[in-house]
């Protein structure tokens, strides 16, 4: 991988890693951290980190006394808090018996590192810098046959300007377990580099929602790697609305037959925001299904990127993969890029993809206007309608209102900003 050198940040990452006593895994990782991906790298061509390379940033030293929290969405949720990238037991709920949370020990960290290194995230900037600088790697494990009937809420808070934040999470769902999780990223003006490894065991089921809502000066470069075993399911919905630059990159590998994957996402972008949803789905074995719907609404001078790769291995016969992305531009200065990519090496598969970028439909606007509804209101109605079905499809009932509300506050910001342009 080509890199844009940033010696200052590389040095600060190395110094930080070396400040730990026992630091085998950090040493390995920091030696592999070579700076920021060069714009010549194909997957970073549309999301350039030029402005980031010019910033003077160093890894944060978590303030373990910082007392900040977010109100849980549902009253009876199990809550876990990360502040400045560090897990905070004092700000988290007591976990039920079927879930364990541990700090990985040195040996486990090394094996975690080698797992990550065997994925396609091995060169992601968040992989090596977060493994070098994370306060600790947190493992959440859902025991065999355990079904959490409550929502697990994880919040990522904290951050300071010109500091990088490094939460690293290993989420493991053991055989026949199930979990519904919502994660919210709400950092202040900094560089956030979350790294996650998710392993979903046989017959297990994970429903996941991620809301990226960091402050308007933040950079968030999230990297997630997910593996699915036999008959497991992973349904994920991401809402990106915050940050100056937010890129959520997910690599999902279907490694067991009859696994099902839904990887949906929405981005709502305004002013000069840059939002990027990059996904790669690897159908490694036969008889798996993947579904992906992505919607974007862009106002102001924002840019949106969707890169969706689907790779079907030679043995992955009877794969069923569908992907559809749509973006709506509500300002002349906004732009959206969609890059679907199908690599199919098996012959008995059903794979389809479609990508559109457009504006609101004139006929529909006129119809609403002709009923006395103002142009602003008509646009708002159509934009909300554009997002409504994907939210209903992707999110379970108790969270509908919350997600609609999150989307609508995002929309109201970009619609207002749009009028001022």
């Amino acid at each position, binding site marked *: 991988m080509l890199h844009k050198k940033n010696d200052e940040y590389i040095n600060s990452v190395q110094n930080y890693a070396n400040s730990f006593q026992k630091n085998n895994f950090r040493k390995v990782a920091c030696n592999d951290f070579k700076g920021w991906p060069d714009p010549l790298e194909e997957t970073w061509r549309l999301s350039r980190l030029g402005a980031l390379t010019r910033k003077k940033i160093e890894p944060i030293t978590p303030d373990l006394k910082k007392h900040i929290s977010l109100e849980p969405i549902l009253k009876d949720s199990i809550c876990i808090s990360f502040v400045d990238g560090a897990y905070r037991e004092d700000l988290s709920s007591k976990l039920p018996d079927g879930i364990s949370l541990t700090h990985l020990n040195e040996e486990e960290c090394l094996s975690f590192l080698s797992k990550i290194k065997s994925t396609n995230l091995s060169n992601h900037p968040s992989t090596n810098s977060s493994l070098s600088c994370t306060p600790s790697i947190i493992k959440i494990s859902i025991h065999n046959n355990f079904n959490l009937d409550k929502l697990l809420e994880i919040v990522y808070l904290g951050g300071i300007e010109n500091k990088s934040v490094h939460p690293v999470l290993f989420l493991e769902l053991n055989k026949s377990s199930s979990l519904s999780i919502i994660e919210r990223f709400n950092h202040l003006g900094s560089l956030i580099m979350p790294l996650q490894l998710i392993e979903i065991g046989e017959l297990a089921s994970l429903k996941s929602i991620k809301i990226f809502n960091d402050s308007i000066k933040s950079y968030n470069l999230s990297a997630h790697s997910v593996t699915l075993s036999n008959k497991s399911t992973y349904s994920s919905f991401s809402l990106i609305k915050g940050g100056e630059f937010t890129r959520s990159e997910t690599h999902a590998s279907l490694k067991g037959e009859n696994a099902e994957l839904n990887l949906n996402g929405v981005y709502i972008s305004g002013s000069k925001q840059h939002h990027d949803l990059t996904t790669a789905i690897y159908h490694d074995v036969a008889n798996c299904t993947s579904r992906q719907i992505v919607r974007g609404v862009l106002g102001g001078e924002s840019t949106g990127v969707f890169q969706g790769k689907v790779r079907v291995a030679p043995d992955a016969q009877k794969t069923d993969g569908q992907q559809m992305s749509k973006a709506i531009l509500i300002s002349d200065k906004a732009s959206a890029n969609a890059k679907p990519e199908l690599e199919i090496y098996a012959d008995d598969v059903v794979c389809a993809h479609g990508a559109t970028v457009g504006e609101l439909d004139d006929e529909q606007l006129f119809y609403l206007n002709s009923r006395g509804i103002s142009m602003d209101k008509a646009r708002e109605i159509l934009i909300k*309608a554009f997002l409504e079905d994907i939210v209903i499809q992707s999110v379970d009932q108790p969270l509908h209102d919350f997600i609609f509300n999150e989307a609508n506050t995002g929309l109201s910001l970009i619609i207002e900003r749009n009028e001022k342009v």
Partner: protein
Amino acid sequence: MSLLEIQKAHLKLDNKEILKGISLAVNAGEVHAIMGPNGSGKSTMSYMLAGRDGYELESGDVLLDGKSLLDMSPDERARSGLFLAFQYPVELPGVGGMSFLREAVNSRRKYLGEKEYDHLAFVKEARKEASKMFVKDEMLKRSVNVGFSGGEKKRFEILQMAMLKPTVSILDETDSGLDIDALKIVSEGVNAQRSDSNAIIVITHYQRLLDYIVPDFVHILSDGVIIKSGGPELALEVEKNGYVGMINAA
């Protein structure tokens, strides 16, 4: 004073003159039918009145209640009391029928200085009006016009008309695509709204609709001008002899 007055309206589309000096005065309490062959300018006239982008007049004027419409946006025209029932009602996926109706009705009420409906009061009112148009509750929960049959779409248009209580309504080929039963329901819905304080313009190819919505005046539109005006008997003449003879005589 007329409720609606079209004064020597000229309009070009793609540099081709479509309306060539139409004048028409419609008074309160009247129903006017505009008939004419394909391409005579009927739908262009309705889009022009509703204020669709690209359908601006070259010259002439249109007055609604004595006020020129020309500088008003489509939504201002609608709030001022103009209603167009679309020949092809537009599908709005993801926009629920009930919330669409409420948004429209409240926009109009706000303009009129009337109190906006709250959710419950509106649902009650909408259900009452909907049942008159044989529009089921279930239809109001669906996305506007999505998956509606031809008849359902037209009934939903007339339901909107009933709830918006416009002063001037233009029904653009509301009979197209309707079977005889649907035609009766729609016509009864329209007739129920005839009053001394509003006016209706019915645009149609066929006399059949005018058996149910009986007009006070009939105008024959051909090649962008009104070539003949008269009473309901004019529609029967069209039905009997077709447009050709009438156009040749003009």
